[in-house]
């Protein structure tokens, strides 16, 4: 029952760090306008997989990949595929909030400027709408010239999401975006993700199973570089097919 085509899809994706085989033939199809969670114990390759989706692993030495990653049906690992354009379309939010040591405005305007927007009016408009999308505008509209590093951790992480939205991406990759936040801030970011889901395709890596269960529509469970099971979140958490998945989601190891 093929309802919608996948936004993003890995096809038999393998990755090696030197001699270490980190991803073993991972095939996963990610639905648009939904949240897909990737769970699994530390070192299972979930972050590595996430970083394949916008080729951030290219920055790491001695990484070798084969297989395909299709974005709207086009292989992003094909030779000649433009990396700057790819990363504009597929952006990433990292574990720790990591705003640049610039003021709020320049942080959000960084992406548009890199892509050639010079006009002050246009930049102001983009900054405003990006901050509104993460519910930061109210709090920060009069403090746009304040250093971003002076904000609270939650605000910093929201700012990082705004900074990403400012380049108008289609896919948001989130690598444990709440692991440095307190429970209240985590709840706020999760609510934000549910809102953003209406307009973006979101893939989140998390080691917090409750979080995956709460917010995601589909979940993939990874173990030792393999995608053990992939399905709707409900199925994975209530009626998994694989014994290893069941053991993990019921907390028997990991």
């Amino acid at each position, binding site marked *: 029952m093929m309802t919608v085509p996948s936004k993003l899809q890995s096809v038999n994706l393998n990755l090696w760090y030197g001699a270490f085989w980190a991803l073993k033939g991972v095939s996963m199809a990610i639905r648009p306008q939904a949240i897909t969670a990737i769970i699994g114990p530390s070192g299972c390759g979930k972050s590595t997989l996430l970083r394949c989706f*916008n080729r*951030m692993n290219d*920055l790491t*030495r001695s990484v070798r990949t084969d297989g395909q990653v299709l974005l709207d049906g086009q292989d992003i690992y094909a030779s000649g595929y433009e*990396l*700057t*354009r*790819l*990363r*504009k379309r597929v*952006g*990433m939010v*990292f574990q*720790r909030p*990591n705003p*640049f*040591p*610039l*003021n709020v405005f320049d942080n959000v305007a*960084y*992406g548009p*400027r*890199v*892509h050639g927007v010079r006009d002050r009016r246009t930049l102001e408009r983009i900054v405003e709408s990006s901050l509104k999308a993460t519910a930061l505008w109210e709090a920060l509209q009069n403090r746009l010239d304040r*250093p971003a*590093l*002076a904000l609270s951790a939650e605000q910093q992480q929201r700012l*990082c999401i705004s*900074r*990403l939205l400012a*380049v108008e991406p289609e896919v948001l990759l989130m690598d444990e975006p709440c692991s440095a936040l307190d429970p209240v801030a985590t709840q706020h970011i999760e609510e934000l993700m549910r809102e953003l889901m209406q307009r973006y395709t979101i893939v989140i890596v998390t080691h917090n199973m409750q979080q995956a269960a709460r917010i995601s529509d589909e979940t993939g469970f990874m173990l030792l570089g393999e995608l053990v099971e992939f399905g709707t979140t409900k199925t994975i958490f209530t009626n998994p097919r694989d014994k290893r998945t069941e053991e993990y989601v019921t907390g028997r190891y990991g």
Partner: protein
Amino acid sequence: MRPIAVHTQRIATTVLWTLAGLTIGVLLFIIGFVLVRGLPHITLEFLTAAPRSMGREGGVFPIIVGTICVAGLAILIAGPVGVLTAIYLTEYTRPSRLTAVIRFGADCLAGIPSIIFGLFGFVFFVIRLGMGPSILAGALTLSLMVLPTIIRTSEEAIRAVPLSYRDVSYGLGSTRWQMVMRVVIRSALPGIGTGIILSLGRSISETAAVMLTAGSALNLPRSAYDSVRTLALHFYILSREGISMEKAYATAAVLVLSILGINLLAYWIMRRFIARVT
């Protein structure tokens, strides 16, 4: 056990305090020594007039101008070259034999006595390239001398920039050059600035290398090909040839005060810069 440990701790504290105090004391003594002898002779005329009868009378105005020209031009040359080299070494290559050779070369250059740079500058810039003793020859020589410092301090500063900034910048679709210019250099600016200020201080106070390359003319320079005399060299000539110890100490005081001034100004600018981003 315990009394001995306490005892050792006390001895350690005393020794460390004494040594630290001694260092500061010597520094203050030297600065005080120069200022006490030099300050009384610094007048408005001394700062704004040209020297007369070899510097026995008059002031040091052309010498101040000469110092600014030589040291300033040296930094204008060595600054960009050094910072770009550091960017190349840290951001554009992976550690290899070539980068190891460049680093080793820079470290060796840093250890060479300045008179050797002076000799090289004299043979190469002054004679071989026919520049004559001049601002240009002096500045080029000094720039070679301070280049290793600028490269290594910039490199350290760039390395200290968190890797995550690079990830984020790439993640937003920037090119490597955009990432370097907009994020890395900005974050590393305090460290890079410190290296450049140190080098400026060294250029201003250098004597041996400029003696052989910038000459010792007392006239106000008209172009980069004119010979000038720097403050440090002026001090050396005045005292060594017994022309005037009063003027020599006054010159030394101007030199010490300007270096103190530059360092304080730089410190203040860095503090403001850091305060603006954190």
